[in-house]
């Protein structure tokens, strides 16, 4: 008798908890209010999908695809700014010649690396979900990559840091799941320089070698 009462109470408690859970879940679903896209958001919407389309274009040969992606990426980003950022404290002591050689090597390296990253998402759709300002001339545009093959999987969060300068926008960094590529490269390169007496020429040579290996 007592046993069955216990069982019933337990069942009741469980079903109550279950509905409570559902209730909370539904409450958690309240969607963010829709608002008009900011210019930076519009810029990302218009341009980033274009890059994925290039990478997804089966008509192009490997070389054509690389060339198109390179043009596209260099038009979209402020690669010189990114390159100098990744040098960290070593930028201040570098000579103009060193900086120029490094900038060229970094450009080649970055195009190759970024292409390999974005090729992974080439079949996916990018959706801008919002943005927030970062200082007076920069903002972060938040997007998700939706895989049509796995519509229910947790979408990958890819954010773009956008700089507004001279009436146009440039991408100066992007992050995947919260990890900013430019920050990661800066850690990598400054650590390398730290171990090699700040020798930027050596870093330049290593980047050139890397870019050839990855291609």
């Amino acid at each position: 008798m007592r046993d069955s009462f216990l069982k019933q109470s337990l069942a009741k408690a469980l079903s109550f908890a279950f509905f409570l859970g559902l209730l909370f879940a539904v409450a958690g679903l309240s969607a963010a209010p829709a608002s008009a896209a900011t210019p930076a958001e519009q810029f990302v919407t218009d341009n980033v999908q274009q890059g994925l389309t290039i990478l997804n274009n089966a008509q192009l040969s490997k070389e054509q695809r690389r060339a198109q992606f390179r043009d596209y990426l260099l038009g979209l980003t402020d690669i010189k700014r990114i390159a100098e950022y990744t040098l960290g404290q070593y930028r201040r002591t570098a000579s103009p010649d060193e900086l120029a050689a490094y900038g060229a090597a970094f450009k080649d390296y970055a195009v190759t690396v970024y292409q390999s990253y974005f090729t992974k998402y080439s079949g996916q759709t990018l959706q801008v979900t919002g943005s927030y300002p970062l200082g007076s001339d920069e903002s972060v545009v938040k997007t998700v990559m939706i895989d049509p093959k796995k519509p229910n999987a947790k979408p990958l969060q890819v954010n773009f840091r956008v700089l507004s300068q001279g009436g146009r926008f440039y991408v100066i960094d992007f992050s995947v799941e919260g990890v900013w590529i430019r920050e990661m490269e800066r850690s990598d390169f400054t650590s390398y320089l730290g171990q090699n007496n700040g020798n930027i020429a050596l870093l330049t040579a290593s980047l050139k070698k890397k870019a050839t290996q990855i291609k």
Partner: protein
Amino acid sequence: MKHINISLYASEGPLCKTGKKWDLRGSRGGAGGFGGRVMRKVGIAVLAALCLSACSTPNRNALDNNDPYEAANRSVFELNQTIDSLTLRPTTERYNNYVPEGVRDGIHNALENLALPVTFANDLMQAEPKRAGQTLGRFMMNSSFGIAGLFDVASRAGIPEHKEDFSQTLAVWGVGEGPYLMLPFLGPSSPRDMVGMGADFALDPTLYIRIKQHIWWIAGREYVTILDRRARNLETLDDIERDSLDFYATSRSLYRQYRAKEIRNGSPRPENPN
């Protein structure tokens, strides 16, 4: 060698749950002894880190990166890389090659579901009732309709997933992360993450279910968790290693940024990194 496989590269989860090789004090038996043992292990590890700090003089770069034990960390990192290439990587590759993706996804979902009670407890401790509700809702739906968590029906119903651990709770409470630590077998960590691992282990309700041979449940689950995590990151980590000049520094940045994002729950970064 099995214990190595079990605990390698676990960036979360308690220290050496297998309790075999690292159980310095011996098993006291029963579930109640775990918390104390874990705390003791954390204490020993912190002491070990302090001893290491005494015999190394950090350079400026190491201090800039909040990594005063960089030299020692790098040695441990190398050790971990070697162990990974000998044991975990081959196993992971076989797992990816022979187990169909659908089955791997099911295993991943079930593991995520098992972790939800800990996330729920941490949601509450972080005073996030909405997220706690989402976690509870997910657990209810996936445990029942999702057949013990094998299918993620809650995501289909639109309840987003997230993870919380006690280290994140400590961060929300204002505890700093402390210096970067590379743990043998367990991978990147920090004093705060180590304390968090122990607390999350103690918070896990399955620890208190009295079954025979409980250790096998813990070891088996941990084994599959590590396998799942490594399998899901295999390609990404390979690419990052291929692209980097100093993989140690790159992975340190990766770990820190990822943890920071988890603590912020995806909200904007307060600081301007420039």
